[in-house]
């Protein structure tokens, strides 16, 4: 839909030459990555390949030692989580990072509450609109929550996952990063989450997904980026690589 509105030449997010040391260990070595709107990019790699480190750099929670981050037509020298969020980049964390005692609606709008009335520093939240936003965001990822007013601690794992995704979709207008979204889910919930990720991309956002399970990767990815020992060892459209070849590159047995 909105993919067509974007010039194909300008990626939603771009980083190049990203290098990060932890002491003497080089966790990321000259990593370059670019993601377009409407595209699902899966980031794969064995444990310790540098996936998490790269995601932390992209989401702004970890500064790289070297490299450039380009969003739109601007290069960001000082890039942190706040800047990432300002640029419309949101993360669905592996442990969801929801406030358990708040309702689904409150969680989804948290930090971007619709205002009803402003008196000095006090802003009254428009609760009806907050509920609408929550319902719409959930619908955008094809999720239904029986009651968006109960504390989320009373909901199941799959429902909480859906709320976390809806939250990110509502807050993002450029890219959503999914950190191992299916790691803790069963078959059915995994399917629902994969569908939700596709829906996120269909709304015109870029989706960067960190995944372990190659089956899920081949089901959802438009493009696959593989890391090994901090190097990018593959950056290919899904159709141009076989599962066996990808596994070989990830493990280094080519």
């Amino acid at each position, binding site marked *: 839909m909105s993919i067509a509105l974007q010039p194909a030449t300008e990626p939603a997010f771009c980083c190049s030459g990203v290098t990060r040391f932890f002491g003497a260990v080089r966790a990321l070595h000259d990593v370059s990555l670019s993601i377009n709107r409407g595209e699902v990019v899966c980031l794969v790699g064995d444990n310790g390949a540098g996936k998490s480190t790269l995601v932390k750099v992209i989401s702004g929670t970890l500064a790289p030692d070297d490299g450039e981050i380009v969003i739109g037509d601007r290069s960001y020298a000082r890039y942190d*989580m*706040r800047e990432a*969020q300002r640029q419309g980049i949101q*993360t669905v*964390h592996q442990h969801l*990072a*929801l*406030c*358990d*005692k*708040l309702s689904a609606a*409150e969680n989804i709008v*948290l*930090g*971007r*509450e619709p*205002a009803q009335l402003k008196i000095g*520093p*006090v*802003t*009254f*939240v428009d*609760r009806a609109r907050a509920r609408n936003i929550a319902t719409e965001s959930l619908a955008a990822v094809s999720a239904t929550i*029986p*009651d968006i*007013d*109960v*504390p989320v*601690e*009373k*909901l*199941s794992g799959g429902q909480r996952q859906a709320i976390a995704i809806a*939250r990110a979709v509502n*807050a993002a207008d450029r890219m959503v990063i999914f950190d191992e979204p299916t790691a803790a889910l*069963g*078959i*059915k919930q995994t*399917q629902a989450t994969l569908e939700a990720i596709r829906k996120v991309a269909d709304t015109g956002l870029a989706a960067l997904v960190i995944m372990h399970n190659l*089956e899920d990767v081949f089901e959802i990815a438009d493009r696959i980026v593989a890391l090994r020992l901090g190097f990018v060892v593959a950056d290919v459209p899904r159709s141009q690589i076989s599962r066996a070849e990808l596994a070989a590159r990830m493990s280094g047995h080519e």
Partner: protein
Amino acid sequence: MSEAKTQVHALHGQKRRRALSEAAIRNITLLALIIGFSVMVQTVNDNFLSVANLRVIGLNISFVGIAAVGAAMVMIGGQIDLSIGSIFALSAVISALLAVSLPPLLAILLGVSAGGLVGLLNGLIVWRINISPIIVTLGSLTFFRGMVLILTGDSSVTGVDPNFTGLGRAVVFGIPLPVLLFVIIAAAATLLLAKTQIGLHIRAFGDDRHAAELAGLNGRRITLGLFALGGLMAGLAGVLAASRLGGASPNFAIGFELEVITAVVLGGVAITGGEGRMTGVVLSVILLGLVTSGITAMGLDPNIGRLVVGGALVAAVAINQIGQERHARRQRRQAMEEFAAEGGAAERLGLAVKARQDDAEGTRDGS
């Protein structure tokens, strides 16, 4: 399958009703205790519920209550301030000392601001060095009590401008001004907590600080704001008391923090943060105030009041704890029911689960 799902949905509906009534049950219990206790004392001493006596009780309640509203906000935000007794005394003493020579209004404003400033300082230390607010505010409890004793030379402050008493002794529509202020502050806090962005952010931060910060909330501003607000409320209570009495004593409000925190916890605010309503806090402040003065009114040893306040604190924490355990049990049961609804139990019993069988097999083949 769909039947099972409907069951799960119905279950959620049930839970919601039950969760709502937990706060309601607490409030009804508190209200029943308030009425029951008042009637009991009244039968022993028929002066207890007289207008004059209710006014005195109301005044005592309002000092604790104003501080309790601030303390409840702090605790819902996941913090705690143990130094409010010393803040109360410091603000009282500063305003009284200044009222000897400065215009009363200025003395009042400076006294209240001192409370806010000490709160802000507590917040800054808690935020900057990131250690438990219990330790930080325990330190400032002693520190500022010491400062109160030094400022007053360990003797009462007297000789204030007669107009200084205008705030604490004023009566509006037959109601003492401190009581009216308590009502207004409690109502404003209720609104703030339930309806505004600030309230939502405080609840989110108290519930899960990490998640709130990931959502872009400013933890520093929330922490500083909470402690400043708590200090401001304790300071206001202290200044009102000094104004009421027309002076201040360095021994003001010793043990005040425990009385306030007891009321807050008894009112249903989770000591771990994120949860609590102002109505419960207000009701428990009223109950504790009635108990303290009722014991004297019945001609009993006033020290029994200490037994009640101390016992109530332990009882309140115990009740909250039992509630949490019940909640955990419910979650375990819910997990089991969900498991059953998804066919997990049926599968293990060797029954066919038709809906997802093909998919599941396909997935297995692939791996």
